[in-house]
């Protein structure tokens, strides 16, 4: 296999672009969330740092970086230090498989606007999202604090349960696209978005990703009313910042995946593909913020009941119906 230097340079450029865009977007998503929540509650939100408060993420970053990096007595040192990275890295890595624009032609090379077009892309997403559990679980366990441990146990149970319904809700998508490759899935939606064929699967996937990124109404692992701050109670400074930013990266990435699987990815009329893709992702981010401003938190037994007794059977029935429909259609 001969590697062309231009190909390698383009690949590194794409990785740098994705990192830059995702991290900046995550920081500004925190800002947007504070703003929108404030508007929902008839407040103004952050407006002191810079024009309209636009430099607030920078101020937050400086604050987090200069804070004391505190480790509680009795904490498991290495796992305590590793856990934030374990939570944030899989979230960023998932974006490697998301196609964020139509293929371009640069310097005579066709460039996929996607870091890596794996033929098992969807499975890689499942694998990395199942590994993201470790950050939550080990962070809470290593803190040597009862609140953190309770939060991490809740997080473990919740993430395992909702991963199941998330995976099952993606099976009909694979059946329709006949591929695990994300670019194939996007291209299969050139005519008609899969949300038209699979509204139920879309709803199940939406609810499951809300639970996966631990957002209200599924924020039990960090329920601040009950568990102080859940699994990251004992974290401070930039380690807390990693957990925090990881959560917002997760929102962007899962929004991007929902766009790819159900809303036709970068397909759309008139506007350039990358613009369509970012508009859809931001719409998902807004939806999550809006839901956070509206709904109360579920109780733990309601969460488990909903996941195992409603979402998972619904997803199974949906697979069965889709299978029959595909067979009968021929």
């Amino acid at each position, binding site marked *: *296999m*001969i590697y062309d230097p231009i190909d390698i340079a383009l690949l590194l450029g794409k990785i740098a672009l994705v990192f830059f865009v995702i991290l900046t977007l995550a920081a500004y998503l925190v800002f947007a969330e504070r703003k929108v929540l404030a508007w929902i509650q008839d407040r103004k939100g952050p407006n002191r740092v810079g024009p309209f408060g636009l430099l607030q993420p920078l101020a937050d970053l400086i604050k987090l970086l200069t804070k004391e990096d505190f480790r509680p007595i009795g904490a*498991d040192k290495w*796992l305590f230090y590793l856990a934030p990275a374990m939570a944030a890295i899989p979230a960023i890595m998932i974006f490697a498989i998301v196609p964020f624009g139509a293929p371009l032609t640069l310097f005579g090379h066709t460039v996929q606007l996607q870091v890596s077009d*794996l*033929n*098992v892309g969807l*499975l*890689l997403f*499942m*694998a*990395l999202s*199942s*590994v993201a*559990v*470790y950050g939550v*679980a*080990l962070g809470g*366990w290593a803190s040597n604090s009862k609140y953190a*441990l309770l939060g*991490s*146990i809740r997080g*473990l*149970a919740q993430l*395992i349960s909702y*991963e199941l319904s998330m995976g099952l809700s993606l099976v009909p998508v694979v059946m329709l696209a006949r*591929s*695990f490759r994300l670019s194939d899935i996007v291209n299969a939606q050139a005519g008609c978005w899969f949300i038209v064929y699979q509204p139920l699967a879309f709803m199940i996937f939406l609810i499951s990703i809300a639970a996966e990124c631990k957002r209200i109404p599924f924020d039990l692992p960090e329920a601040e009313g009950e568990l102080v701050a859940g699994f990251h109670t004992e974290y401070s400074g930039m380690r807390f910042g990693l957990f925090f930013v990881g959560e917002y990266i997760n929102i962007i990435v899962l929004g991007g995946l929902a766009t790819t699987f159900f809303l036709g990815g970068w397909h759309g009329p008139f506007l350039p593909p990358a613009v369509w893709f970012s508009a859809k992702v931001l719409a998902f981010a807004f939806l999550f913020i809006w839901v956070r401003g509206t709904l109360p938190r579920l109780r733990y037994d309601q969460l488990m009941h909903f996941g195992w007794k409603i979402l998972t059977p619904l997803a199974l029935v949906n697979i069965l119906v889709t299978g029959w429909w595909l067979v009968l259609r021929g």
Partner: protein
Amino acid sequence: MYGDCYPDMETYLFYILAAVAVIGTILAITEKHPVHAIVYLVSSFFSLATIFFLLAAPLIAMFEVIIYAGAVMVLFMFVIMMLDLGRTDEAGRPVLKQWLLPILLGGIILASIGVIAAGYASAPSAPGAITVRDFALTLFRKYGVAVEIISMQLLFAVVGALYLGRRRTP
């Protein structure tokens, strides 16, 4: 390509990953604390998955991560966190008598690896990456009956779990 005699990047990657897998597994066995053992085992699974990926079996690599690292080990950790294991640091080392059977089994495995390595001629040329389609056809056409039997077994397990977990009416 530089020719077959020179090791390329994938070979170096293989040796690094294999070392990580072996060291991770050894540490997982010798570590006394169960949570640390799980972390070592998970890192070993990751390098195994990457090795599968290098061997042009991406599907197996993904299943390795999803099933073993993402489900089985997480459940182990869940159980460890839920149960109070007491002072795990004070668990005694196994005595010689308990070592006998593992040594015997390990010897058999090492011997068989040695036999295979001695008769090693050349790797059969890989027919290219195994696609999902090939995998699915083999699994559900060729070994369809076995899959059905295993799924029946899982059904029995589910029914058994329901029976054990039902609310007893006095």
